[in-house]
């Protein structure tokens, strides 16, 4: 029962599909672009945050009197300076500890002072009386019945009967259909394995930064780097107990987010300090704070079981996935469980996810949250199973692949999807048949992500000279302003250079959801197209007025208003610039708007091929060749689509072989810096080849699918498969750092 036109509304393009220079480009290569930490205000103070050195401790008391008495200190805040009735109690607790400090790095107090050095000295004068409690940072340990319990209000949901005792398991999720037991009984071969993945960090190079300027009447402004300034406004208003209309938030240029800037950390603290001091306050996180106290990913443990017939048909699949998400509930166990088998059409499938709290910072989204870990374990077993059956791993995947009209593993039927197309491209790609050197192995993996739409408001103004000012409300984290300009220019039939896009502040445009879920090119793009169409309607009305004919008799073609046909009359076409020039005399300014809760986002699939070389002496892994093949629906700005593919792959390489949150016995993070938490550097990586597949998403006028997140889903498994092939032993734990790889090789000898 799918409504389906077969083709997107528009298939022939003038500018969409080209890769022009981005509108914010010059600012970014000259140092002019203003990021979170680059803004100043007259009379500005420096804000700094005191953080718990303990993984788990009751806060008996906080004495700030000595800090307050220090010359140059203008404000000190603790939990009491925030609205205890705030809507999101977990966020309230996360931004400033209340009864307990729940992780190493949890904020407990903050100061605003006239300089860095005064602020630092003031922090040292704050006396916190901690009662240190037993802690737990490992997901499996936290699930044990005798584990230290973080919250006495968490009783596992999703289980029957309802537990009578609190635990660290916040929620159990289950998805699936069919009868897995029966399915396994039909299988000729079954592979079952356990896996672990370490927590990683998004690793954006720009630390969180915020300049808050709250006036004495409680109204004010925030300047910050965020993926969603409307979210910042609404959340801060709630945490401070003020009206939303009192806050105006401007999103600065953002130096990377990847999901990590979809919530608040320092923004409400800066605002509370500013309110108390009566002066602007800038808070900038150090890298150490970013690692300890922003939102890394979940670490996970999992068990996967898949059975197949000799002909390659999967008969049953089962996953059990445990996600620790730090000190508060909300780890993406549900998404992991939904995504785990989404690449395959399965008659019998059951996926279970557990959302577990531990004494670590509350996890935040990271590019397709929850999906990469699930894909790692599932796609590792898929590759192994294909090998056991003696089938080519791509053929095995094609045989079972998700297709239009088939029931997905999480339930609904798929609409138009491009998984098979990416697999066919992979099979035909020269990379797949290239010879391998000694100690090298090749791996393949597929990946899936939902992609979102969401609330979007866009405004487009026709300027007096026929150029166009486009205002969108979704922060640009990877070149989306260029894509928006392309889509507006396409609709209006004008040149790309004639459109300039900005990210408007929260008071200038209606509400916009956060830049997340790969939604911007889809949803803001859709709203931009609709706003352009709205303005075209008005441009046609103006032309009709100038010609004294009915607006219905005017059409818009190639950037001009034209009479609809011979009956409409004989008139020379009017260009956008000509209509704009006479706007004052035809009715005033011309602008188009669109507000929507965008639906129709198209899911996206990818297939990655990786070659790795393993040094058998040291266990060191070098990725030697990498190819990303992904369905983009329609690539609006192909160079930035490729950039998303390459960036996701590179982050996946880091996750697979280097990156890891390491906690000591004391529950403290041991590697809170880029030296010890090593993200890939230029010399670690090969070129990353890309192939854009375009299977249109019919939910978008041009067929666009989001592309930002899917690219990080396949790498973990693709690399694990290549390393396992190279090392001759199955690697089941990430990261595949030299000691782990060496241990696996040695144990296999």
């Amino acid at each position, binding site marked *: *029962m799918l409504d389906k036109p077969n083709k997107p509304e528009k298939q022939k393009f003038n500018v969409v599909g080209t890769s022009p220079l981005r509108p914010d480009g010059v600012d970014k290569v000259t140092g002019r672009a203003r990021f979170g930490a680059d803004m100043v205000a007259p009379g500005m103070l420096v804000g700094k945050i005191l953080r718990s050195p303990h993984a788990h401790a009751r806060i008996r008391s906080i004495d700030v009197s000595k800090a307050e008495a220090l010359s140059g200190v203008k404000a000190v805040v603790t939990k009491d300076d925030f609205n205890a009735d705030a809507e999101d109690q977990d966020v309230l607790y996360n931004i400033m500890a209340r009864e307990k400090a729940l992780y190493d790095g949890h904020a407990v107090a903050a100061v605003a002072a006239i300089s860095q050095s005064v602020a630092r000295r003031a922090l040292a004068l704050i006396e916190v009386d901690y009662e240190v409690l037993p802690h737990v940072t490992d997901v499996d340990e936290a699930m044990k019945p005798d584990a230290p319990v973080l919250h006495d209000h968490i009783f596992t949901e999703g289980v029957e009967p309802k537990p009578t005792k609190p635990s660290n398991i916040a929620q159990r999720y289950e*998805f699936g259909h069919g009868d897995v037991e029966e399915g396994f009984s039909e299988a000729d071969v079954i592979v079952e394995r356990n896996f672990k993945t370490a927590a990683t960090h998004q690793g954006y190079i720009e630390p969180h930064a915020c300049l808050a300027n709250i006036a004495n009447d409680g109204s004010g402004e925030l300047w910050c780097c965020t993926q969603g300034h409307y979210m910042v406004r609404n959340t801060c208003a709630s945490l401070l107990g003020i009206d939303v209309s009192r806050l105006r938030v401007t999103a600065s240029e953002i130096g990377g987010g990847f999901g990590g800037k979809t919530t608040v950390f320092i923004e409400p603290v800066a605002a509370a300090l500013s309110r108390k001091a009566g002066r602007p306050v800038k808070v900038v996180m150090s890298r150490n704070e970013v690692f300890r106290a922003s939102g890394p990913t979940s670490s996970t443990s999992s068990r996967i079981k898949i059975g197949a017939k000799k002909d390659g048909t999967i008969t049953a699949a089962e996953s059990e996935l445990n996600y620790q998400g730090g000190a508060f509930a909300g780890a993406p166990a549900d998404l992991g469980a939904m995504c785990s088998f989404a690449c395959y059409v399965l008659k019998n499938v059951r996926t279970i996810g557990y959302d577990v709290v531990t004494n670590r910072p509350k996890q935040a989204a990271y590019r397709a*949250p929850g999906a990469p870990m699930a894909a790692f374990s599932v796609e590792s077993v898929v590759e192994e199973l294909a090998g056991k059956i003696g089938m080519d791993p791509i053929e095995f995947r094609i045989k079972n692949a998700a297709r239009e009209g088939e029931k997905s593993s999480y339930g609904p039927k798929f609409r138009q999807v491009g998984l098979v197309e990416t697999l066919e491209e992979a099979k035909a790609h020269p990379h797949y048949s290239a010879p391998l050197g000694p100690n090298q192995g090749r791996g393949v993996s597929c990946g899936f992500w939902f992609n979102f739409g969401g609330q979007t408001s866009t405004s487009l103004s026709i300027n007096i000279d026929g150029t166009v000012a486009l205002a969108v409300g979704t922060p640009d984290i990877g070149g989306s302003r260029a894509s928006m300009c392309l889509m507006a220019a396409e609709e209006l039939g004008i040149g790309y250079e004639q459109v300039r896009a900005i990210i408007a502040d929260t008071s200038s445009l209606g509400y916009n959801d956060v830049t997340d879920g790969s939604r911007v090119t889809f949803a803001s793009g859709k709203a931009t197209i609709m706003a352009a169409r709205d303005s075209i309607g008005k441009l046609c009305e103006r032309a009709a007025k100038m010609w004294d004919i009915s607006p219905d008799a005017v059409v818009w073609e190639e950037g001009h208003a034209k009479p609809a046909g011979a009956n409409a009359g004989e008139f020379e076409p009017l260009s956008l610039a000509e209509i704009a020039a006479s706007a004052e005399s035809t009715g005033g300014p011309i602008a188009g708007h669109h507000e929507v809760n965008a639906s129709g986002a198209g899911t996206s699939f990818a297939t990655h091929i990786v070659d790795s070389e393993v040094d058998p002496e040291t266990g060191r892994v070098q990725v030697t060749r990498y190819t990303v093949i992904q369905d983009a629906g329609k690539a609006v700005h192909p160079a930035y689509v490729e950039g998303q593919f390459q960036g996701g792959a590179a982050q996946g390489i880091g996750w697979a072989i280097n990156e890891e949150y390491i906690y000591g016995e004391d529950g403290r993070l041991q590697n809170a810096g880029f030296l010890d938490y090593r993200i890939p550097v230029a010399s670690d990586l090969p070129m990353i080849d890309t192939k854009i597949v375009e299977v249109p998403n019919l939910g978008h006028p041009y067929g666009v699918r989001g592309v930002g997140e899917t690219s990080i889903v396949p790498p973990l498994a693709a690399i694990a498969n290549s390393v396992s092939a190279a090392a001759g032993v199955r690697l089941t734990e990430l990261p595949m750092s030299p000691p782990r790889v060496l241990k696996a090789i040695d144990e296999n000898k």
Partner: protein
Amino acid sequence: MVKVMLWGSLKPAAEGKAEIHVEASNVKQMLDAIGKAHPGLAPVLERGVSVAIDGQMHRVAGYEPLREDSEVYIFPRLEGG
């Protein structure tokens, strides 16, 4: 009747049923109807759910129209990066 499919963990709250049939012409009516029929589901529904209507995912759906023969899946609220 609209066919409503629950994600697995909701089954206990719906007396073991994974599939519920209700009369509804939009998502709001559907959620109200199943919450009324199975009070155990109400707290989950109030926290917010995402739905897939005939294969199309909606992160938040309020008054999205449903057809007589629509197939709707209810999911935990989706969040992205």
